């Protein structure tokens, strides 16, 4: 057996030093801006808080790319009254505890606004700290819990799950006449939002799901839940989970002989979902999305061209909504002459902007879009349902 060893004293010293550094960097006094970039000259500092590592890293990457493109274009056109916008990226690893830590740093770092996070749970974690510091944030999260915060500093660049799922349920039941529906959702912030919204929509049409299976966000083996679903023989399987997990569920569903049509919200409209599941497995899937494809109109095509030129790959929903969100904040900064705090928040609310996802008109809870569209996956691409 290994005999116990006393830790070397330099090991202990290093540990103490590391703890001290972590403690100091972790608590900046909230609200005391190092040097507020709101007034006067110098760059306008905006924080981007997103997962650049971990399971949600794709979402964070797409959001950052979308925001960067909008800011680059704005700066090239002269910025805000001659002042450039400077973005600082914070990696929150898709972990709300890390996000909270970052929010404290942002609160005392002289940032006038936040882009992020891409995940609802992280945005909800940040919101109280940013509200106290009077820093508006525009998030790509879509959980109804974000609107339920009633936070004057929180804005969504997408409709909430409620809208996504109502559009989807209406299409399935009223347009396609499909009433034999099973559900599988995860119990994360996004998944629970999807679960509750979709189940309520089905109930309003008098439909009870044939199966209502819950999985954890990091689950990998869905054999038990999917076999239970297969025994009920549904025509539609609603999936409420993030891109990768949805893709794994779809892949395993087909491997277990489930022939049902998959239906779901925004994550199912991404190339990531299709690639993870396998394009042949998701043919005919029904997607409710606020941004179906890059070919919708001249605006989306121009955006896609610029995005491809900048990043070498085609954009999708997350990049598009982040781009729209950034454009709105840029307009608000221009309209308010680089205001900060509540003035900037009110300026954002006052922006009426027709972007890639539609026309934004924010309500008091920060929701600006109230419509999504239905698409069908054909040959690995999402096309508008006729």
């Amino acid at each position, binding site marked *: 057996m*290994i005999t116990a060893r006393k830790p070397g004293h330099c090991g202990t010293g290093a540990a103490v030093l590391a703890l001290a550094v972590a403690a100091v960097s972790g608590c900046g006094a909230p609200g005391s801006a190092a040097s507020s970039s709101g007034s006067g000259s110098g760059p306008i500092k905006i924080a981007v808080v997103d997962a*650049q590592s971990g399971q949600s*890293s794709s979402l964070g990457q797409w959001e950052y790319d979308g925001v960067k493109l909008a800011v680059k274009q704005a700066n090239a056109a002269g910025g805000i009254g001659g002042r450039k916008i400077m973005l600082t990226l914070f990696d929150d690893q898709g972990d709300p505890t890390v996000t909270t830590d970052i929010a404290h740093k942002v609160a005392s770092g002289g940032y006038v606004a936040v882009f992020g996070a891409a995940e609802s749970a992280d945005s909800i974690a940040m919101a109280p700290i940013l509200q106290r510091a009077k820093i508006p944030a525009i998030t790509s999260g879509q959980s109804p819990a974000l609107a339920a915060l009633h936070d004057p500093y929180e804005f969504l660049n997408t409709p909430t799950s409620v809208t996504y799922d109502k559009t989807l349920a209406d299409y399935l039941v009223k347009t396609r006449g499909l009433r034999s529906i099973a559900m599988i959702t995860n119990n994360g912030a996004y998944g629970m939002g999807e679960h509750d919204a979709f189940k309520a929509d089905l109930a309003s049409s008098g439909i009870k799901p044939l199966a209502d299976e819950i999985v*954890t966000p990091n689950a990998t083996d869905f054999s038990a839940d999917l*076999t*239970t679903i297969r*025994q009920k023989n549904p025509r539609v399987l609603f999936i409420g989970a993030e891109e*990768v997990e949805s893709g794994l569920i779809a892949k395993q569903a087909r491997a277990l002989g489930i022939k049902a049509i998959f239906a779901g919200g925004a994550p199912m409209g991404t190339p990531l979902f299709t*690639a993870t599941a*396998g394009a042949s497995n998701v043919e005919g899937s029904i997607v409710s999305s606020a941004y179906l494809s890059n070919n919708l109109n001249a605006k989306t095509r121009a955006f896609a061209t610029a995005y491809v030129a900048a990043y070498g790959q085609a954009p999708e929903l997350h990049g598009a909504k982040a781009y729209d969100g950034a454009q709105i904040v840029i307009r608000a900064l221009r309209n308010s002459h680089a205001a900060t705090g509540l003035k900037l928040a009110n300026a954002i609310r006052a922006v009426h902007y027709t972007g890639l996802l539609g026309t934004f008109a924010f309500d008091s809870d920060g929701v600006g879009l109230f419509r999504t569209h239905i698409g069908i996956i054909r040959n690995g691409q999402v096309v508008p349902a006729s």
Partner: protein
Amino acid sequence: MQVFVQTLVGGLGFGAIYALVAMGFSIVYRTMGLVNFAHGDIVMVGAFIAATSYMSSRLPFALAVLISIALTAAIGLVIERVLRPLEHRDLDLMLIGTIGFGIVLEALATLVWGATGRAVPIPVGASPVDIAGIFVQPYDLLIIALAGVAAAGVWFLLARTKTGAAMQAVAADYEAATAVGINAGRSNAMAFAIGAGLAALAGSLAGPVLYVNESLGATMGISGFAAAILGGFGNIPGAIVGGLAFGLLSGFSAGYFHGDSDLVTFVAFAIVVMIRPTGIFGESTVNRA
């Protein structure tokens, strides 16, 4: 009944992957007494190399796996060589060194492959086989078969070859082994390389059933570590049994406890470890008395 059997089949498939990861942990622990905390991230790197070789370079899947094993084994050699000076001075520092290497591997992977990850299509037998209402994926059978071959290979190495004997000699009595001319450093390097190779095999095979991104390391690392502990840390047959057991535990837990499945899995694991701390087959490691 159908749900039970199907869950069993699914659990064995994932269990075989955990078994491979557990074997990698165990062979290093058995011969060096070291828990290699970079092991999960080595699995991740192996998965990325195989995915890139298979999809970007369009090589046959088997070749992609072999390339991954070779390159990842080389990474194992590098880690061992860098940490070798600590091996007989302070094992705790060497362990912390492996944690550091894990972080480095994750950062390097993001630099090389980006943050988005890779979805890998199933390379063989994409259609499941329906056996009396139970669906079996041929690919899962392949994983189980390869895990068995790997286990047999490792057993053969340790029990029947000079290299294996040397590795166990170093573990049993470092001074005596060195005295008879065994190069302990090289022997430990071999252990690390084999461990890394097993990690690469696990990662390469896991790619098509999961999703290859930087967080794969953490998931595989924790599951493989738990599997190794269940079976007896350092014990090769224990790694197989522990891996399969952990795969079944996770699968059934998800089926019966749904949203609470993670909690239940690890509570059950904790109870087993409290009852039998050295695992099913007992712990096997160096004699450092």
